[in-house]
């Protein structure tokens, strides 16, 4: 099959062109052995099916980051055509990569993207002249409107290789020559979006702006998440559950298998049936929030807001030893820890990932759990609520500071391009969302089912009861909580928000409520998160992090028991 590579600087609109070229069958993968992602899809040219790869953005073929290394490696694997996507509003810088690509053996065709933006930037580019100088077809495109895409596809066969030679030391000089011959600059108008950009990044206005965006994000995510849950839950309970119970009972009248597949009790979240809880957790509990969060995240990403948040938070996060960009996984973690974990892939070093993961898991509960805490503790007074969240915040920050000191290594400095604000192109957004959801379904779901399976076996074999007796009771007495709470603690592993809800019948006083809430947030990640954690960090590191969290939760709650 023929192979086309989409190559260009970051933020040039490669993904939009990619989504215009490819169909629904797209997947995002990580380049083996790295955490750098690339997307692969297929397009049809006449009768032929062609593989199209959206290569990670790179400024040059002499790599300065992991993403660039991967780009170079993908290039090294060979291809039939390279579509070099250029940001027409930044011709000079983009030509750096172009000239390097033209020195190679693979035929190149250039897409001069963001063509619509050249106008209000006061830039005029002579496309024909550029084509003459570089020796390869140059097509002005606007990914968003689709302008030029057809011409691009029609002229693919005209792409050529090795059409422009230069001496390395003269490279920028050559580029300067080309741009002066081809580009005319006139006055640039300031647009509304330019103004917004200034506001959102200057700290004095940027931080309030960010808080507003954050607030809106939570509202939107909660709305979508809860909305989807209220859709999925009845379908699961009223249609799927009876159906599967009947089917399994009829096909397999063996009790052991019955328990394995359906769980030991009819209530879904109280047992570990493979086909009940095992599917309930990923689809009814986790998926709605994942969808909601990825939806909002993709919008923020395509608008271009994320690098600005990274800049605003960079100073604070650097004290904890992590990059400004970690703000994104942390934000995701406010909704559901699973996408938060998955998002730590964007971090370059192992050290950062560990600190970021601990931070994500401990700084705040996931949205469903937060909601529960608010409804349970809220009536006692808002100050108790604030106390709980403040405790969590302080614990996670202190932990971050300590980890930063202990873990060896340097955290690289922030170094990122800030793209102008752009209106997102909806089809690309949908496609991105689809890719991310697919990723979740294919990766996390099997893991969760597997985890439920293991726990189910343990439960059926009576091992869980053993743990309850050996560990549970002593722990609960140290915390000053009634010993019946052990079952709640175990349940919290399956579903964090339910564990909070189950505190109700215990009639705890406010001090116990605070201690119990803090403990139930910190002690262990929920089953879905734990499994993703194991997959992302490897079992050894995952266990270390979980052990760390557990120890901290005990220490903190013992302390609280003493102080309050």
């Amino acid at each position, binding site marked *: 099959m023929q192979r086309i590579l989409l190559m260009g600087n970051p933020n040039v609109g490669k993904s939009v062109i990619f989504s215009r070229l490819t169909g629904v069958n797209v997947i995002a993968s990580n380049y083996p052995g790295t955490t750098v992602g690339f997307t692969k899809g297929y397009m049809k040219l006449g009768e032929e099916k062609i593989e199209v790869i959206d290569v990670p953005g790179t400024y040059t073929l002499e790599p*300065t980051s992991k993403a660039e290394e991967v780009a170079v490696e993908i290039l090294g694997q060979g291809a039939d055509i390279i579509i070099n996507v250029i940001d027409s509003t930044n011709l000079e810088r983009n030509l750096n990569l172009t000239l390097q690509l033209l020195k190679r053996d693979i035929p190149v065709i250039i897409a001069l993207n963001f063509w619509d933006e050249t106008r209000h930037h006061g830039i005029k580019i002579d496309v024909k002249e550029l084509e003459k100088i570089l020796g390869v077809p140059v097509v002005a495109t606007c990914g968003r409107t689709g302008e030029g895409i057809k011409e691009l596809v029609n002229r693919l066969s005209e792409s050529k290789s090795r059409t422009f030679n230069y001496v390395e030391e003269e490279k920028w000089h050559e580029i300067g020559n080309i741009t002066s011959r081809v580009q005319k600059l006139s006055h640039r108008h300031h647009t509304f979006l330019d103004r917004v950009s200034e506001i959102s990044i200057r700290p004095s206005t940027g931080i309030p702006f960010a808080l507003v965006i954050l607030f809106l994000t939570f509202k939107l995510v909660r709305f979508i998440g809860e909305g989807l849950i209220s859709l999925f839950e009845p379908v699961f309970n009223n249609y799927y559950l009876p159906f599967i119970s009947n089917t399994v009972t009829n096909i397999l009248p063996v009790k052991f298998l019955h328990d394995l597949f359906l769980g030991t009790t009819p209530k879904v979240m109280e047992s570990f049936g493979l086909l009940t809880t095992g599917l309930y957790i990923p689809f009814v509990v986790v998926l709605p929030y994942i969808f909601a969060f990825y939806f909002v995240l993709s919008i923020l990403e395509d608008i271009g807001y994320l690098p600005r948040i990274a800049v605003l938070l960079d100073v604070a996060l650097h004290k904890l030893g992590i990059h400004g960009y970690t703000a994104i996984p942390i934000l995701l973690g406010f909704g559901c820890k699973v996408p938060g974990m998955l998002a730590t892939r964007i971090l370059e070093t192992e050290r950062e990932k560990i600190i970021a993961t601990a931070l994500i898991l401990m700084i705040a509960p996931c949205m469903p759990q937060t909601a529960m805490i608010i409804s349970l503790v809220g009536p006692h007074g808002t100050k108790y609520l604030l106390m709980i969240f403040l405790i969590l915040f302080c614990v996670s920050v202190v932990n971050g500071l300590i980890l930063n000191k202990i873990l060896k290594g340097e955290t690289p400095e922030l170094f990122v391009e*800030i793209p102008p604000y752009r209106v997102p192109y909806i089809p690309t957004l949908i496609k991105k969302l689809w890719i991310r959801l697919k990723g979740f379904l294919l990766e996390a779901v099997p893991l969760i089912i597997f985890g439920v399976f293991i726990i189910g076996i343990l439960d059926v074999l009576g091992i869980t009861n053993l743990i309850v007796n050996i560990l549970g009771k002593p722990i609960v007495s140290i915390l000053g909580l009634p010993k019946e709470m052990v079952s709640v603690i175990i349940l919290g592993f399956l579903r964090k928000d339910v564990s909070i809800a189950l505190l109700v019948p215990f009639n705890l006083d406010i001090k116990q409520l605070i201690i119990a809430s803090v403990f139930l947030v910190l002690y262990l990640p929920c089953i879905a998160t734990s499994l993703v954690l194991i997959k992302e960090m490897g079992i050894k590191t995952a266990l270390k992090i979980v052990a760390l969290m557990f120890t901290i939760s005990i220490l903190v709650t013992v302390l609280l028991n003493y102080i309050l």
Partner: protein
Amino acid sequence: MDITQMKEGDKGVVVEICGGCGIVNKLDALGIRPGVEITKISSQFLRGPVILQVGNTQVAIGYGMARRVLVEPK
């Protein structure tokens, strides 16, 4: 002077980048190299990242890195 000493809105021409090839290459890729004009857009509190305009792009670079870029003010 270096970038961190520039005032917001100031323009300058890059004179030298004090660093090893790692930094030089990274900055070069973004278009920051000797002879290029940059504008300082803003800085963040407490030695946070500095935002510059290079050509038609805005970039944010860490404080430490910004200190290593020497400019001639315009």
